[in-house]
C-alpha cells in the first residue's frame, strides 16, 4: 500500500505537486493519469525519496522509502528507462543493483529471461533500442520481487507485442496481491490495464475512483437513434425533457433521457426505430472533460473547415524563375 499525505514539491516559483493526498491499494492496477506537467513523475520521485518533499509524507506499507533496509526487495520503481550507463551491459547493470541488496546472480539471469533480454544481456546498453531499455528498466524494477511497483510510463517504446505482454504481467502481479501504480499518457492503454485511477492536474488531485466510475461520472450519456420519422420522434423527446441533435447521416443524438425511455416514447406513438444504441464515452473523452481546465500545455483548438493542401502555383509563374536558373548556370 502506498499512502501519500499532503505531499507538495516546490521548484523555485512553481508548485509541481500541490498538497496531494491519495492511497494506492494492493490487489489491483492503479493508473496514474494527468496531462503533461501535471506532476506525475515528480510525485513518483517524491514517493521513492529521489526528491525531497516540501511538505507532507509518502509511505510504503507505513514506512518512508528511505527507511526501508532493502528497498529493492519491497519497492520496484521504473522512473526513467534511459538512465543506464551506455557502456555497461544489461547484466552488469542489474548485477550492481542486485549486489546492494544481497540478491544473487541467478535472480539477475531470471529477470533478463523474463523480459526477453537474455541473448543481449552481455552487450552494452548503448546499442539498445528504446523498447529494449524499457525492458531492462522493467527487469530492474522486478529484481527484488517487490510487493509494490511504481512505474512511470512503462510501455513507452514497447511494440504492440511488448505492450500486450506487459499488460498481462502487471495484471498478474497485481492479482497476486501486489500494489501497482502505473502512470501513462496513453488513455486507451490505461482503460485496458488499470482498474482504479488517480487523476491529477497541476499537481492537485482531480479524482480517485475506479476506472469504470470515472468514465461514467465524467461523460455525457447519449443515445444514438435512427428512425424513418425523425421529426415526429424529436418532438416526442423534446416534450419528454430530452435534447436532440441531428447528425449529417440523419441519426439523432439524444441526451438527458435514456434508451429505455426513448423506446417507450417511440412505441407509444407507433414510430419505427431502426437503431437505438447507448453511446459509451471513452476514458480519453472522460479524461479530457475532467482535466480540461488544469492542462498546462495545450495546443490551439482545431476548429472550422478542414485545412486544404496549398494549391501549387500556376506553371506560368514558375517558368521565368526556371529561365533565370538556366541563365545563371550557363
Amino acid at each position: 500500500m502506498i499512502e501519500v499525505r499532503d505531499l507538495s514539491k516546490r521548484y523555485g516559483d512553481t508548485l509541481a505537486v500541490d498538497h496531494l493526498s491519495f492511497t494506492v491499494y494492493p490487489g489491483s492496477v492503479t493508473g496514474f493519469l494527468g496531462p503533461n506537467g501535471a506532476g506525475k513523475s515528480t510525485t513518483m520521485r517524491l514517493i521513492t525519496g529521489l526528491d525531497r518533499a516540501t511538505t507532507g509524507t509518502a509511505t510504503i506499507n507505513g514506512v518512508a522509502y528511505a527507511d526501508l533496509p532493502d528497498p529493492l526487495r519491497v519497492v520496484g520503481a521504473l522512473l526513467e528507462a534511459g538512465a543506464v550507463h551506455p557502456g555497461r551491459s544489461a547484466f552488469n547493470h542489474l548485477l550492481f543493483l542486485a549486489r546492494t541488496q544481497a540478491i544473487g546472480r541467478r535472480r539477475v539471469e531470471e529477470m533478463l529471461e523474463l523480459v526477453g533480454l537474455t541473448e543481449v544481456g552481455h552487450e552494452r546498453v548503448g546499442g539498445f533500442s528504446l523498447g529494449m531499455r524499457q525492458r531492462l528498466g522493467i527487469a530492474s524494477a522486478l529484481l527484488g520481487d517487490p510487493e509494490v511497483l511504481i512505474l512511470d510510463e512503462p510501455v513507452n517504446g514497447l511494440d504492440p507485442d511488448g505492450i500486450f505482454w506487459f499488460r498481462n504481467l502487471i495484471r498478474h502481479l497485481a492479482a497476486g496481491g501486489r500494489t501497482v501504480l502505473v502512470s501513462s499518457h496513453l488513455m486507451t492503454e490505461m482503460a485496458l490495464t488499470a482498474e482504479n485511477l488517480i487523476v491529477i492536474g497541476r499537481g492537485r488531485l482531480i479524482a480517485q475512483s475506479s476506472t469504470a466510475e470515472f468514465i461514467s461520472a465524467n461523460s455525457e450519456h447519449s443515445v444514438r437513434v435512427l428512425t424513418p420519422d425523425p421529426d415526429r420522434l424529436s418532438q416526442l423527446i423534446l416534450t419528454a425533457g430530452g435534447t436532440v441533435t441531428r447528425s449529417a447521416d440523419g441519426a439523432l443524438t439524444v441526451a438527458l433521457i435514456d434508451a429505455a425511455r426513448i423506446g417507450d416514447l417511440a412505441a407509444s406513438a407507433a414510430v419505427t426505430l431502426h437503431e437505438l444504441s447507448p453511446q459509451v464515452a471513452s476514458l480519453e473523452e472522460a479524461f479530457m472533460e475532467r482535466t480540461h481546465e488544469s492542462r498546462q500545455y495545450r495546443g490551439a483548438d482545431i476548429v472550422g473547415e478542414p485545412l486544404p493542401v496549398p494549391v501549387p502555383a500556376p506553371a506560368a509563374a514558375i517558368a521565368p524563375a526556371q529561365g533565370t536558373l538556366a541563365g545563371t548556370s550557363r
Partner: protein
Amino acid sequence: MTATTAQRAVPTSSDRSAITRFGNLVGSEWTKLTSVRSTIWALLLLVILSVSFTGLLIGLISGQWDTITEQQRQVIRLDPVSQILGAGFQFSQLAVCVLGVLVVTSEYTTGTIRASMLAVPRRIPVLAAKVVLFAGVTFMVAEVAAFSSFFLGAAILSPHIPVSLTAPGVLRAVIGAGLYISMLGIFAIAVGTLIRHTAAAITGIIGFVLVLAPLTLLLPGNLGKYVYAYLPTNAGQQLATTGQAADALLSPWQGFGVFALWTAALLTLAAYLLQRRDV
C-alpha cells in the same frame, strides 16, 4: 516464471550485519567500476604512462650524463629518487583526477545515480563505498606504477649514481606516492560529488592540482610560503618525495595529514550536499 507467481522469489529483507551490508555496497561499486571499459583503460594508462615516462626521462638524463653541466649532475646526485618518481608522477595525478571525478559524474550524466539512490536511499553509504573501493584500487595500481618506475629508473641511473630502496626516506617516498595518489582519488570523488558535471569537475580539479597549487610558489613573502605549503596537494606531495628542505614547514607525514584533513573536509561537504540535493 518466478516473478509472476504469488510466491516470493526474494524475501522482503535479509538479516545482514552492518559490515556485511557495507561489504555488499563495496561489491556493487566494484561491479560498476569494472564493468565499464574506460575505467580499466584509465587505470592501465596510469601504470603504462608513468612507467614509460620514467624510462624515457631518466634514460635521457643517463644518455646525456657526460654532456650536462656538473651543476646539473649535482642536483640529480642530491636527490635521484625525486627525479625518478617525479617523471611519471604528473600522469598518475592526471589519470586519478579524471577517473575519480568520473566515478561520480558519469552516474549523473547517464542517470545511473537514480538507480543507485533507489537501491540505497540513505545515499551516504554509496559515497562511502565508492571512496573505500576507489582508494583501495588506486592505491594498489599507483604502488605498482611507483615501484615499477623506481626499479626501472634506479637501474637506468645505476652506472652514474647508486640508488637504493633502503636509503633514508626512499621506501617512504615510493610507498608515499601510492598513498598520495590514493588520497587524491578520494579528493577527486569529493569534487565530482560536489560539482556533478564531468567537464566542470575535471577542469576544476586539474586546474587546481596541476596549475593553481604549484603556481602559489610564486606568491611573495612569508604568507606565500605558508599558502603554498598548506594547500592540499602541495602538502600531500611531501610524502611522495625525498630530499625535503631543512627549513620545510611540514614534514612528509605532517604534509600528508594536512592533505587528509582537506580531503575529509571536502568529503564531508560532499556527503552533506548529496544527502540534501534532489537526484
